[in-house]
């Protein structure tokens, strides 16, 4: 029966609020401000303004060449390691510009870890040493501290039960999925605040992929995760927020559920539904 109940009229969201809901978010961990990036004369990011919420998973999606990987490589100053690469604008980490004069990029990379597309454990090191490497580089020598950190990191990466009897084995002897989780354990061991993942599952089978996705879900309470993925279903599964990039520009950014069900921009709609190009 639909007769007498009055419904409260809600004020409709403005276009700006729909397109950029992140601007209303609190607890932003990372924020880019009018950020540009170039490789030589080729501008790959254009006036990018994006805000990453703390303790959430943010997915970056978009077609090849749209600047996804460049964006996350800028978030921990790895972009500048490429010759002729440069940037302008600001990347704020907890409110401080990581590109400000005098900021040590190594310190930034310690706070903002990276996991790459292809698992890249140090091939000559054991499983244990792979995880402990970062801590040793930071000067940690205490065996019990190292033991505890290695175990904790491997547990967080859902790998401990599989390798606890083989910590002396070479990291390269593990399966592809295990190697990738080892790399995540290695990144977690130095206790970063943000973890950037560049297509972390693209070389993995569905079972290994599912484990990485479960891992991402389990760590987001303590870390801020930004993941670049070509797999839109993966973005839909793992992320809380999704950003769609096209030709170096941020086309749309919003809560994942809303963006996947009801994208505001026609370009996003076409990309998501495969009616692109």
């Amino acid at each position, binding site marked *: *029966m639909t007769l007498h109940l009055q419904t409260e009229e809600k004020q409709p969201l403005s276009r700006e609020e729909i397109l950029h809901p992140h601007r209303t978010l609190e607890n932003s961990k990372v924020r880019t401000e009018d950020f540009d990036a170039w490789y030589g004369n080729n501008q790959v990011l254009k006036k990018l303004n994006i805000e990453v919420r703390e303790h959430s998973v943010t997915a970056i999606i978009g077609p090849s060449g749209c600047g996804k990987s460049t964006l996350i490589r800028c978030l921990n100053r790895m972009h500048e390691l490429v010759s002729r690469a440069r940037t302008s604008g600001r990347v704020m980490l907890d409110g401080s510009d990581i590109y400000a004069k005098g900021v040590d990029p190594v310190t930034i990379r310690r706070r903002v870890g990276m996991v790459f597309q292809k698992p890249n454990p140090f091939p000559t090191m054991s499983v244990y040493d792979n995880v402990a490497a970062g801590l040793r580089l930071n000067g940690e020598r205490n065996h019990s501290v190292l033991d505890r950190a290695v175990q904790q990191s491997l547990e967080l990466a859902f790998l401990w039960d599989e390798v606890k009897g083989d910590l002396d084995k070479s990291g390269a002897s593990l399966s592809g999925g295990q190697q990738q989780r080892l790399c995540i354990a290695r990144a977690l061991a130095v206790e970063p605040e943000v973890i950037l993942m560049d297509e972390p599952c693209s070389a993995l089978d569905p079972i290994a992929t599912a484990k990485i996705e479960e891992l991402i879900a389990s760590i987001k309470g303590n870390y801020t995760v930004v993941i670049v993925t070509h797999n839109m279903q993966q973005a839909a599964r793992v992320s809380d927020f999704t950003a769609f990039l096209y030709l170096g520009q941020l086309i749309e950014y919003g809560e994942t559920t809303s963006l996947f*069900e*009801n994208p505001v921009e026609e370009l996003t709609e076409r990309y998501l539904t*495969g*009616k692109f190009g």
Partner: protein
Amino acid sequence: MPRLMDMGLEKLRNMVLDMAELSQNTVSTSIDAYVQGRDLRDRIYSWSEELRMLQDEVSELAVELIARYQPVASDLRFIKSCMEVAYGFSRFGRYAHDISDVIGIFGDLSSCDRQSVKEAGSQAKDMIRLSIKAFTERDVELAGRLKKMDDVVDNIYLDFVKKSAHEREGNLKCVVSGTLILRYLERIADHATYVGETVPYIVSGERSARK
């Protein structure tokens, strides 16, 4: 280049349109049968069963499309809406069957004043036709008209009930049968409104608050 999913979406659309046609005929026949005093329960029951089975088929195809193609955005909204609309059409069949049952239970109702049922029935039929047209043509403006039409049916039903409650003298058989049929028509009108509500959702993702 057509996408793999497009063939499935087309099939889903055709199934829903088949249901639309059948449900419209079923409701129309049941209302006309009441007005003409004809007992068409068997025919209407078989159509309503067919609608129920078609609804199951729509759900199965929708789930298959979701499982195989992981649709998003307008594709996802369309599939979700097809499931809702198919449910609405199946309810049309069920209420049409309930209307036809009234004649079976109460027998000859030719002495009853059937004006209210005629009015509400005509309005409900128009609403079904309009909701199907709005859904088929994705016409948001047309779909928007349904809410006001629904109010008309609601009011006919409420007026009848109120009038019956205060009438001391009256044919109980006419009052009860009239109340039942108007109640079924009122629910049919609600479901036609729900069908209409899927149109803005499919087109732009807009969800209207349901009263």
